[in-house]
Every structure is written in structure tokens, then in C-alpha cells.
């Protein structure tokens, strides 16, 4: 599947001839996609068995090549019923930290989904609640076309 994204709020696949798009959107907004964060399959099975719905949490994610791990805000993690599985030591420009990590499932707008560790991260005041890190991108071919203002993902 090939998917194109820009820095505009994600709604649908980007038309290459869409004149409302500008390269500056990608510079300022970053590549954004809509995702659905779900509990992992074993937790889904338990919730289904208990008759509890688990529709997942729809949210916006930034594709972040600077992040090793995929992450989400504590609010998303709690609402999506993810399961705590440990810690991840992270080194960043802010120093060395340990983040709590949860087991979850990420559903992408092109229909694919993957089970993944999701690190808790504070993203206060930002227009997204999730970061797609390099651990997710390892399954993609991604082309950043800064001139056109489009990122193309092949999954």
C-alpha cells in the first residue's frame, strides 16, 4: 500500500495535484497521519470475553524519525487499555530518562495494523497524541519529498 501525507491535518489520501497543499505545511506541521490505538490481541480477547467494548482510540500521530520508539500520551494509553510491559531507557537532548512501555496495536489509515511496544510520552500542547518511531518505520519504505511537501509511505 502506498500512502501520502503532508503537514495538514490528516483526512484522506493526499492528491498530488491538491493545490491547497504547500511544502511549508510539511515544514511546520510535520508528517501527520491518523491512527487507531487498540489493546493488543490477548487483551482484546479478555475484554470481549467480559463483554466490554474495545473500540480503540482514534488520534493523530507524527511520523518522527528522531524517535526510536513509538509513543503515546498517558491519556491515550489509559483510554486504549494497553498493558504495561516494562521500561525503556531513552537518551535524548533532554538527558537520560526511563519511559514506561505498554503493549498495544496500531491501526494505520491504509488498513494495515501492527502490534508494538508504545512508550508513554508527554506531548502537552501539541496537535498530536502519538509519535510513530523508527521501530514502526522499520516495516516501511518512506520518501520525504520536501520540494513537493509530501511524504510517501510504502508499507
Amino acid at each position, binding site marked *: 500500500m502506498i500512502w501520502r501525507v503532508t503537514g495538514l491535518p490528516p483526512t484522506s489520501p493526499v492528491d498530488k495535484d491538491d493545490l491547497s497543499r504547500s511544502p511549508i505545511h510539511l515544514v511546520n506541521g510535520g508528517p501527520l497521519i491518523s491512527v487507531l490505538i487498540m489493546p*493488543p*490481541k*490477548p*487483551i482484546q480477547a479478555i475484554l470481549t470475553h467480559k463483554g466490554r467494548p474495545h473500540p480503540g482510540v482514534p488520534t493523530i500521530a507524527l511520523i518522527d524519525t*528522531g*524517535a*526510536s*520508539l513509538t509513543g503515546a500520551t498517558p491519556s491515550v*494509553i*489509559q483510554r486504549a*487499555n*494497553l*498493558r*504495561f*510491559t*516494562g*521500561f*525503556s*531507557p*531513552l*537518551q*535524548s*537532548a*533532554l538527558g537520560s530518562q526511563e519511559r*514506561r*512501555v*505498554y*503493549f498495544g496495536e496500531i491501526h494505520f489509515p491504509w488498513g494495515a495494523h501492527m*502490534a*508494538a*511496544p508504545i512508550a508513554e510520552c508527554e506531548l502537552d500542547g*501539541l496537535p498530536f497524541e502519538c509519535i510513530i*518511531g523508527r521501530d514502526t518505520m522499520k516495516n516501511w519504505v518512506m520518501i520525504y519529498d520536501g520540494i513537493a511537501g509530501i511524504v510517501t509511505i510504502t508499507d
Partner: protein
Amino acid sequence: MVENKPQTDRNYQYLKDHWDELFQKWPQKFIIISDQKVIGFYDSYEAAATKAITELGDEEFIIQQLTDVKPLNFIFVA
């Protein structure tokens, strides 16, 4: 979202105390630690987490990849 801090902390402390010996035994593997013991080792996080949830239920556990490369992140908000 299930989290029992004291047990979690003990499992994590066990991991840190035994990191070198665990890394020697299972380099690059994802290990499950529960009740301060290694329960299993797997090639992927998903396999380890699925096994831990299905076999351990509500018991506390942690999963860690035994890697010699620390994850690197750059966080910068303009």
C-alpha cells in the same frame, strides 16, 4: 492498564542487577521477567508480550530486549 509498582520495581531491579549475565546468555532477545525470574526469551517483543499476557494473566511482569545499543531519541519543540 494494570501496573503494580512494587512488584514492577523488583522485577526491574532484578533486570538491572543481572543485566550482564542475561545479555551473555540471550543477546538481542526479548526476555520476560516475573517474580524476579526469567520466564522466557523470544525473538520479538510481540511474541514475548503475547506469551506473557496469555500465560501470566494479571501477574506482574516486565519485558526487555537485551541489547547493547541504547535507544536514541531527539526531542526538540520549536
